[in-house]
């Protein structure tokens, strides 16, 4: 049985193809302006990687993510909360709390050992709670986004960051730079601020170990460190954390086929 999960996020599209429980193909692309063209391209790429499959070979396709209704060829849709939980718990069976921080949304999900959702909280429609915040801060600091996270690890002291809004935080970063605050310390402040917002969301769903972080921000070592500090707990990050939602969707698709839905 071959299934696929397609996760259309605010910034990127992720596709995962699963054959008999094994991940056989994947692809990621910037959603850009023309989502449809980007989607067609990345689906083709993932099918190619899965051994030259075509759409007709797929038994069931589930769309997920904020733009999931845009997958016109999907058989059905699933929420990103369910997809995250399923994907994370399959990769790391001890996961009880799954945190997904993407470009425009942050989510905390408490789940059972079978990957079923028990409770969740979402931070949305405010850039301060998601990856967009770190992108804006990287621009304000004039460093590459990739560099921003690593920089935080070299910080020697914690400086406070008061702004809770991305736009105001940009001005605050500029003021800190004027005050000759080292960029490393500002970077840590940026990630600590992000992490404290995510931490409170995690506490809202009732924090249980193990904690797994997925989504694009999981690639940011500065954020992971701040989150560990905020939660006072270890945080596990699977390899390819941005694919977890799409992977979960593909697994749920397989379950639906088995259940004959």
């Amino acid at each position, binding site marked *: 049985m071959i299934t696929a999960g397609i996760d259309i996020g605010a910034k990127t599209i992720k596709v995962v193809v699963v054959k008999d429980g094994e991940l056989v193909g994947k692809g990621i692309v910037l959603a850009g302006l023309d989502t449809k063209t980007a989607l067609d391209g990345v689906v083709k790429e993932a099918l190619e990687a899965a051994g030259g499959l075509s759409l007709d070979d797929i038994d069931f396709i589930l769309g997920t993510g904020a733009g999931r209704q845009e997958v016109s060829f999907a058989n059905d849709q699933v929420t990103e909360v369910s997809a995250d939980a399923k994907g994370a718990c399959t990769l790391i069976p001890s996961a009880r709390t799954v945190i997904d921080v993407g470009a425009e949304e942050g989510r905390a999900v408490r789940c059972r050992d079978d990957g079923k959702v028990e*409770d*969740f*909280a979402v*931070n*949305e*429609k*405010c*850039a*301060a*709670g998601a990856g967009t915040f770190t992108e804006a801060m990287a621009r304000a600091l004039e460093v590459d986004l990739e560099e921003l996270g690593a920089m935080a690890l070299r910080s020697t002291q914690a400086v406070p960051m*008061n*702004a*809770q*809004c991305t736009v105001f935080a940009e001005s605050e970063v500029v003021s800190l730079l004027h005050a000759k605050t080292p960029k490393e310390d500002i970077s840590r402040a940026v990630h600590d601020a992000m992490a*404290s*917002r995510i931490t*409170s*969301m995690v*506490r*809202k*769903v*009732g924090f249980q170990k193990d904690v797994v972080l997925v989504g694009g921000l999981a690639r940011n070592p500065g954020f992971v460190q701040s989150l560990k500090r905020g939660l006072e707990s270890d945080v596990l990050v699977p390899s390819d954390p941005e694919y977890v939602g799409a992977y979960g969707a593909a697994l749920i698709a397989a379950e639906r086929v088995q259940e004959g839905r």
Partner: protein
Amino acid sequence: MLANYGYTDGSGEYFITVDTDKCVECEGRPCAGACPAGVIEIITDDYDDQVCAVRDEHRKQIKYSCAPCKPASGWKTLPCTDACPHDALTHSW
């Protein structure tokens, strides 16, 4: 005076409203001590009245500061509003 502390942002509306006319009458003002997160304090306002207020450092983040008292799985009562003998405190969310 009805003092609304908090904010609205893209994600929603988060205000704690204090009816300070009721605070003026209040003895002991137990609300501040009841809050486990230290969100509430007693201040002397611009008109020299002793009233309850949301601490400055929490005003831009009460959604987060108050989150422990409002678990996603449902919550019934809040320590601050329970402690207030005059129903002077209300949360908008």
